[in-house]
């Protein structure tokens, strides 16, 4: 399109660029405002937003000319970080118009993230936007585009299951705990063994509200040390069997060669618990808990493979949900483009009308010079009459152009009108 300014995007991300390069290209938060202002002071760049996270560096901009704009943004990134262009060309991607819009919607909806559906990216995009706004480097189009992107992300999160399911062992375990106990705050966890994974899972549970923590280990010192970091209480290894019924969640990770929790033991514990449910997570290999324990009512036993299966299934489900998310995004891109193209029609319509008005004025005034017999009221009437004729004639083209610019081939109509009316000369 020759008429209006265009949207472009230049960037690198974790898929195209190794971390050694990405880290060199990152914009520090402290200097971000200065960078935004420097960019927008260029006559080629009307608006811009810089998104810099550990996985991506992207500049979204509205530029006077697509090709020149992309070159300029790439040069800016290189110059800013003092790296020569030649080394970086292979890493850059650049998109314009539709594709740039789609890319932003995908990024903010977390479809382009390393862990599909993670929630952090949306916050980062929001930060980038608010920094850009406060340094006045954005205008109508990018404001609209980013606000829209936040809506799309919200819609994707609400209407698809993209971020619904945990994709790590400990998050899957927390999810299960929350499906058994709902609120974890009044529940307790017992660690039997001090494996690293068990510690991680316990920390995760604590971050979700678990307050009471017991730690038992064959070496009491290790139990005590871990209990201290987790703000819990250490148990003698032998006494955990007696205390087992106090815990709602038990995570085992000992190096014991045989099962340390048998069905009969658990049966007693569950009776002492008055049938209150208990969630057992067996991370140990070889396993610590006899699989028959799961046959007991109100006992839920997951070993490491079970949890891994849950994670894999969740991963697949996120992939599937990503397809649904793409449908939403495609639809929203079209809607945004419709809005964006009406913007383009407006300057053309204004130019077309100005041109017609200028012609009318010149012609009427030229002719009125030879009509001195007319009163000034009559002359005014002639002005009004001719104005109204011009308006009438231009009415349909104006309406239709606005309508057509919302359709797919809108730019063809715009081009035709500009050509027919000689607007580009």
């Amino acid at each position, binding site marked *: 399109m020759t008429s209006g300014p265009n949207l472009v995007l230049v960037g690198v991300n974790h898929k195209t660029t190794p971390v050694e390069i990405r880290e060199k290209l990152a914009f520090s938060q402290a200097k971000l405002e200065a960078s935004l202002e420097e960019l927008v002071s260029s006559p080629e760049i009307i608006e811009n937003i810089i998104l810099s996270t550990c996985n991506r560096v992207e500049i979204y901009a509205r530029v006077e000319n697509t090709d020149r704009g992309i070159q300029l943004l790439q040069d800016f990134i290189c110059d800013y970080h003092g790296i020569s262009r030649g080394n970086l060309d292979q890493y850059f991607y650049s998109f314009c118009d539709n594709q740039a819009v789609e890319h932003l919607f995908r990024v903010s909806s977390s479809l382009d993230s390393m862990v599909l559906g993670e929630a952090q990216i949306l916050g980062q995009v929001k930060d980038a936007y608010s920094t850009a706004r406060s340094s006045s480097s954005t205008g109508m189009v990018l404001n609209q585009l980013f606000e829209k992107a936040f809506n799309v992300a919200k819609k994707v999160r*609400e*209407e698809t*299951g993209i971020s*619904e*399911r945990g994709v790590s062992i400990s998050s899957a375990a927390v999810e*299960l705990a*929350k*499906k*058994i*106990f*709902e*609120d974890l705050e009044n529940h307790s966890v017992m660690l039997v063994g001090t494996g690293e994974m068990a510690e991680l899972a316990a920390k995760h549970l604590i971050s979700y509200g678990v307050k009471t923590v017991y730690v038992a280990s064959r070496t009491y010192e290790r139990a005590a040390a871990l209990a201290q970091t987790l703000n819990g209480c250490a148990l003698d290894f032998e006494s955990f069997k007696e205390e087992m019924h106090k815990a709602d969640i038990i995570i085992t990770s000992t190096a014991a060669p045989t099962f340390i929790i048998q069905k009969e033991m658990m049966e007693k514990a569950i009776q002492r*618990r*008055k*049938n*209150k*449910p208990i969630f057992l997570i067996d991370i140990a290999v070889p396993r610590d808990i006899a699989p028959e324990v*799961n046959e007991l*009512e*109100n006992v*839920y036993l*997951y070993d490491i493979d*079970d949890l891994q*299966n*849950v994670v894999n*299934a969740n991963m697949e489900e996120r992939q599937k949900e990503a397809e649904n998310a793409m449908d939403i995004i495609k639809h929203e891109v079209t809607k945004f483009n419709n809005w964006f193209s009406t913007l383009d029609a407006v300057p053309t319509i204004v130019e077309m009308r100005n041109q017609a008005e200028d012609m009318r004025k010149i012609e009427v005034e030229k002719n009125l010079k030879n009509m001195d017999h007319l009163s000034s009221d009559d002359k005014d009437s002639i002005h009004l009459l001719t104005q109204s004729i011009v308006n009438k004639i231009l009415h349909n083209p104006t309406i239709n152009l606005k309508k057509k610019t919302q359709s797919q081939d809108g730019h063809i109509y715009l081009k035709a009108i500009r050509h027919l009316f000689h607007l580009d000369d």
Partner: protein
Amino acid sequence: MDKISFNIALFSYLLASFAYFVYLVYRRPLVSTLASGSVGLGLLSQTISIGIRSSLTGHGPYTTSYEIAMFLAWFMVVIYFLTEWKYKIKDLGAFVIPLVFLVMLVSVFLSKEAGLVPESEVRFWLTLHRTLSIIGFAAFSIAFAAGIMYLIQEHQVKTKKLGIMYFRMPSLEVLDDLNFKVITIGFPLFTLGFMTGSIWNTKMDQGFFAWDLARTMPLVMVWLVYGLVFFGRMATGLRGKKAAQGAILGFVAIIGTFFLHIL
């Protein structure tokens, strides 16, 4: 007029049943609004229908089988709404509202003639008996729905097959807790209903024990089932799956008794 509003209510509950079900599976916000909206409309038109009928007959909706079915359906919706508002478990609707529709549908085939109103003293006990029992039954219908949801959720967590319902449905603890709470409300009401029913019988000069055994025995069974769930939890910690099964069994028995009564 009461017929028109009855039909609107019937249709609204049917629509709502579908909407709740679709919402359970597909989670579309628009469907959620549709579900709540149509249940709301159903409740409103049913209230109008009951109101008009009561003003025509001159007594509350508790004399004929038709009226009792209407009243039960109405209370089920009211209690459902209260539960949804308190617990924010919208999916209960997918199990309660179809039951409401079913009760309404059955009542279509029941005689619409006005019942006889007994003299005032007996009438008092009759009103109390039927109203208390009906509120009790309505509370049990929520326990029934919570029980079904519990069994579905429990099955998934136990067998480690975490399907879509695992993510959609609330936790086992919430469902078990809800089951217990509504039974805690329903059981005393039902018991009082039972007792006032006996008093009513006595007032009718039929004697305290002169019950129609075939009609009352199932209710005694129902009382025993809920009594077991209610006291069992407090005494021995009967909960979870068994409590859910009890709530389901009890409600199926109630529905059975209801049919026994109207046939």
